[in-house]
């Protein structure tokens, strides 16, 4: 069997019969519909991606502040208790002796 000749014959056969260039009916409409669907999906993806990034940033900030509040040494209590001060101010009038009484 003459393989090089067979190879040449078969390649010549392929050259002689180029594939046809027929296009299915309304193929361009299909492509344009695909592009439109893709654009809509891209729009949704844009927002979804943005929101996920924002959520991730919020979680990171919360983690950082949580870590800071956990690991920073607590401020020494020097008697300035805000809640106690607030209570004293609010009830100051009630604690005062009533001088107007006869």
């Amino acid at each position, binding site marked *: *069997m*003459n*393989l*090089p*000749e*067979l*190879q040449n*014959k*078969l*390649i*010549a*056969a*392929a*050259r*002689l*019969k*180029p*594939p*046809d*260039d*027929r*296009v*299915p009916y309304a*193929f*361009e409409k*299909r*492509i*344009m519909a*695909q*592009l*439109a669907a*893709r*654009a809509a999906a891209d729009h949704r993806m844009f927002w979804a991606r943005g929101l996920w990034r924002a959520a991730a940033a919020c979680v990171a900030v919360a983690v950082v502040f949580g870590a800071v509040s956990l690991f920073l040494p607590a401020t020494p209590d020097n008697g300035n208790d805000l809640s106690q001060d607030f209570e004293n101010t609010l009830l100051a009038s009630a604690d005062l002796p009533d001088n107007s009484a006869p």
Partner: protein
Amino acid sequence: MEQSEAELIAAVLKGDSASFEPLVVKYSPRVFSTARRYARRESEIEDIVQEVWLKAFGKLKTFRGEAPFEHWLMRLAVRTCYDFLRGHQRNRISSFSEISEPEEDWLEHFVAEPSHAAEDADAAKMLIDRVLEKLSPEARLVIQLLEIEDRSVKEIAEITGWSVPLVKVRAFRARGEMRKILARMTQDKYL
């Protein structure tokens, strides 16, 4: 008034995607013809062409207008076909037992009288399609572009993105691979 190709591309880049449709209409026959060189089933061919157009739309920003749009598009089409071949590699491993009767007749005719076997016979075309299907994706691409489409090594390097020496090496290997397939095919049938 009909817009020129450059105007259509500029309009698409500005956001008017409807301007892409005339380009699809104009070049789809060429893209289909290219895809039919690498895939057999019509559904696969349509998928390839669709992929080419979606890629073309997405990558249109990279088209600089130095070469004709058709060249840029055909490069994209060939690369998409090559990706398709690589994705369907396992389909090519099969025996030659499924050769049809006309193909077998043509081969017998060739064995008996090599110079009289007609190159324009449908059986010869079917046979070469069968042989091409059995080649590796690289070999098939090189044989197709170099031997069948008669392109130069430099052109193939531009289309595929391979270097010129790599194209030459792959062409050498592809011819060897093809000869081995032909030897196996004829051994299966005539030994």
